[in-house]
C-alpha cells in the first residue's frame, strides 16, 4: 500500500473527541519537515488548527504558518467565487453577492453541492500541483462519507452541464490510491472503535477513496508484563501494607490504586484494539500514538505527536 506521505491528498477523519485535528496537524507538520511542501486544510472552521499550530487565524487563502507548511480553512462561498472566477467568464460574476446567496440556497436543498465545493477546492490544489501533499482535517465520521461521495452523487444526479464534467476529473483524483487516501483516527475505546469499524465498511461501499491507514491515538503504556503483575499483586496484599507504608513514608494506597486503574484501563483498551484489528483488512496499516501525559498543548504537543507518527511511519 502507498505510504501516507507518498500520496498527494490525505483526508484525516474520526469520531469527535479522538484527536483528529491533532493528528492531521502532526501529519502535516511531519510531512513539511520531511521536504514536502504541505497544505493543511481545516474543513470544520472551528479555528483549532490555528490554535494547535499557534499561528494567526487561518482563512480561505492559504498562509505559510511554519517553513514549508501552509494552512487554510474551508469556506464554501469563497470556493464558489474562486471557481466562478477561474471557470466562467460571465459578466454577472461582478454581481456575485446575490448569486452566492442563491447558490447557497440551492446548496442547502441539493445535497452534495456544498460538499463538492469543498472537495473541488482540495482536488484543484492537488491537480494544479501547488503542494506536494494536501492534508485535510476532514469532517467527523458522521459527515465524511457525504463529502467523499459528493462527486459521485452529483455525477449521478446531474446528467449534463459544467458541474458534471467537473466531477469527472475530481473522481479521477479521489479514486486513485496513488494520489488520495483516507486516514481514520480513533482511540482504543468502545465507541470510537465501533464507529471506525462502521466507517471502514462505508468507505469501501459508498466511496471510491482508498482507506490508507487507521491511526490509534492515546494508547496507554503497558505498565507490566504478566510476571511483573504477579509481583504487583503481592505488593498490594494486606500482608505487605505495613512494610510498604514504612518504606514509602506514608500510605501507598492511592499510588497502588492508580496503578490498578492504569492496568484496568490498558486491558479494556487492549480488548477494543483487538476487536478493531480483527475487523480490519490486514493490508491496512495501523499506526499507534501514545497517550501524552502532559500539561501543555499547542505546537509543543503537535511536535511530540508528529515525532511518534514519524516513528510509526518508519522514518
Amino acid at each position, binding site marked *: 500500500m502507498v505510504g501516507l506521505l507518498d500520496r498527494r491528498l490525505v483526508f484525516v477523519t474520526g469520531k469527535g*473527541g479522538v484527536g483528529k485535528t491533532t493528528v492531521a496537524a502532526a501529519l502535516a507538520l511531519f510531512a513539511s519537515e520531511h521536504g514536502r511542501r504541505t497544505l493543511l486544510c481545516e474543513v470544520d472552521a472551528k479555528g483549532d488548527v490555528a490554535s494547535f499550530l499557534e499561528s494567526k487565524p487561518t482563512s480561505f487563502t492559504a498562509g505559510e504558518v511554519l517553513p514549508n507548511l501552509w494552512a487554510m480553512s474551508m469556506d464554501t462561498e469563497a470556493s464558489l467565487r474562486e471557481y466562478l472566477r477561474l471557470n466562467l467568464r460571465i459578466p454577472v460574476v461582478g454581481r456575485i453577492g446575490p448569486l452566492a446567496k*442563491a447558490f447557497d*440556497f*440551492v446548496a442547502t436543498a441539493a445535497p452534495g453541492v456544498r460538499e463538492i465545493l469543498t472537495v473541488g477546492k482540495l482536488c484543484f490544489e492537488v491537480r494544479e500541483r501547488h503542494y506536494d501533499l494536501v492534508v485535510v482535517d476532514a469532517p*467527523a465520521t458522521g459527515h465524511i462519507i457525504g463529502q467523499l461521495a459528493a462527486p459521485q452523487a452529483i455525477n449521478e444526479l446531474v446528467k449534463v452541464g459544467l458541474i458534471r464534467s467537473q466531477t469527472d476529473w475530481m473522481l479521477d483524483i479521489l479514486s486513485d490510491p496513488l494520489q488520495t487516501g483516507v486516514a481514520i483516527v480513533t482511540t482504543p475505546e468502545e465507541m470510537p472503535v465501533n464507529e471506525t469499524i462502521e466507517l471502514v465498511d462505508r468507505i469501501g461501499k459508498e466511496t471510491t477513496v482508498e482507506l490508507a491507514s487507521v491511526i490509534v491515538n492515546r494508547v496507554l503504556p503497558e505498565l507490566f508484563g504478566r510476571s511483573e503483575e504477579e509481583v504487583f499483586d503481592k*505488593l498490594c496484599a494486606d500482608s505487605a501494607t505495613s512494610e510498604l507504608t514504612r518504606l514509602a*513514608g506514608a500510605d501507598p494506597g492511592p499510588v497502588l490504586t492508580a496503578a490498578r486503574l492504569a492496568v484496568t484501563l490498558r486491558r*479494556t483498551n487492549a480488548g477494543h484494539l483487538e476487536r478493531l484489528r480483527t475487523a480490519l483488512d490486514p493490508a491496512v496499516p495501523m499506526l499507534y500514538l501514545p497517550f501524552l501525559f502532559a500539561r501543555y498543548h499547542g505546537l509543543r504537543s503537535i511536535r511530540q505527536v508528529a515525532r511518534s507518527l514519524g516513528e510509526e511511519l518508519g522514518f
Partner: protein
Amino acid sequence: MAPRRAPEATAGRGSLENLLASREIIVACGPGGVGKTTTAAAAAAMAAARGGGKVLVLTIDPARRLANALGLEGIGNTERRVPDSAFASAGIKPRGQLFAAMLDTKESWDDLIRHHAPDDRTRDEILANPLYRNISGRFVQSHDYIAMERLFEIHSEGIYDLIVVDTPPTRNALDFLDAPERMAEFFSSRLLRWLIVPYRSRLVNFASKPFYQVADRILGTQFLADIAEFFILFQSMYDGFIERARAVQRLLADRRTSFIVVSTLETVPLREAEFFAQAITERKLHLGSIVLNKVLPDYLRDPAGAAVAERLRDRAQEIAEAVAPTIGVPDTAQVRRVLAEVGQNYMDYRLVAQSEAEKRTELFTTAEAVVSVPYFETDVHDFAGLMRLGAGLWGE
C-alpha cells in the same frame, strides 16, 4: 400522568436531581466523544428509578452494548418500555417507568411527509423524488431538524412526564438549535419562490435571466428542473412546515425545557462545551447544568500520594531489597521495576488530574449546577453500569 415526586431539598449544585424533577424536557448537548448518549440514558434511568413517573430517553446512536442494556437492540423509531427486570439486574426497584427510543432519521422524515402532505399523490411523489431521498437519508442538517421535530411530536402526545433527548453530533455546535428556525426560513424564502417561478409559468422566459444562465451552465437544465419540482411539491406543505418549525422553536425556549451541556475536562471538548453553554445562554434558552464526565479520581491529586510515588520511583532499588522478602519474591530487580513503574504511573496520572482540576476551577458558567462524574474503569455495558453513572449524576 403519574405525580412526580418533589425534589429533595438537599439535592444541590452538584446534582441533576432538582433539574430533572422540575422540567419536562432535558436536551443533552455537547461535543462528540464525551459520553453524551450514555449520560442522557443514565439521567433518564435515574429519574425513572428515583423520581417516578414515565420517563423517555430519546437517543440518537447508542453504542451496541448500551442499546442492549436498554433493550433497544434492533429497535427503530417507536418507544419501548425498558423492563423492570433491567432495573432488577442492578438491584433497583424503580418508582416510575423508563422508556427508550432510537431516532431513525429517514423514517422520521417519511412520517413527517405523510403527516403534512395534502394528498396521497403529493406524498408519493415526494417520497419518490431523488432529491428528497438524498436529503432525508444523507443530508447532515436534516438530522438536526428531525431530532427536534420528533421531540416535539412525542412531547405533544403528552404521554411522558419527562423526556431526555440526546442530540446528534453536529458539524457546528449551534446547528441543531437553529435547525427549526432555518427550516422555517428556508421554506418561506422569497428566493425559493423566485427559483420555481419559471417552472410554474411557461410565460416567463427564464433563460434570459442571468441567474438561470449561470445556474444552468453550472448545474445543467435537468438538475434545475429536478430541484424546482421538489420545491413545488414541498410548497404544498409549506404552511404546515412553517407552523411546525416555529412550534418546535417555542418548545425549546419554553421554561419546561432545559439544556445540559456534557463535556470532559480535556482542552478541546471543554472549549467547545463552553461555546455551547454560551450559545444556549445567548439564545435565552435555559442552561440547567454542565456535566463533566470521566473526571479522574481525587486520590490522584493527594499530596501525600505524590510523595510516596516519588519515593517508590526514586528509591526503588532500596525499597525493593527491603520489601522483597516480605512478599516472597527473590528477584529484587523485578520488584524494583514494578515499584518504579507504579511510582511513575502515579505521577503521570497526577499531571493529568491536576490539569483537569485547574480547568474545572476556571470553568465559568451560568448553569445552575455543575456535576462531576468520576472516571469509570470500564465502559458502560449493562444496566448496573448505567445506574452507577446515574448515581454520579445525582452527586452520590
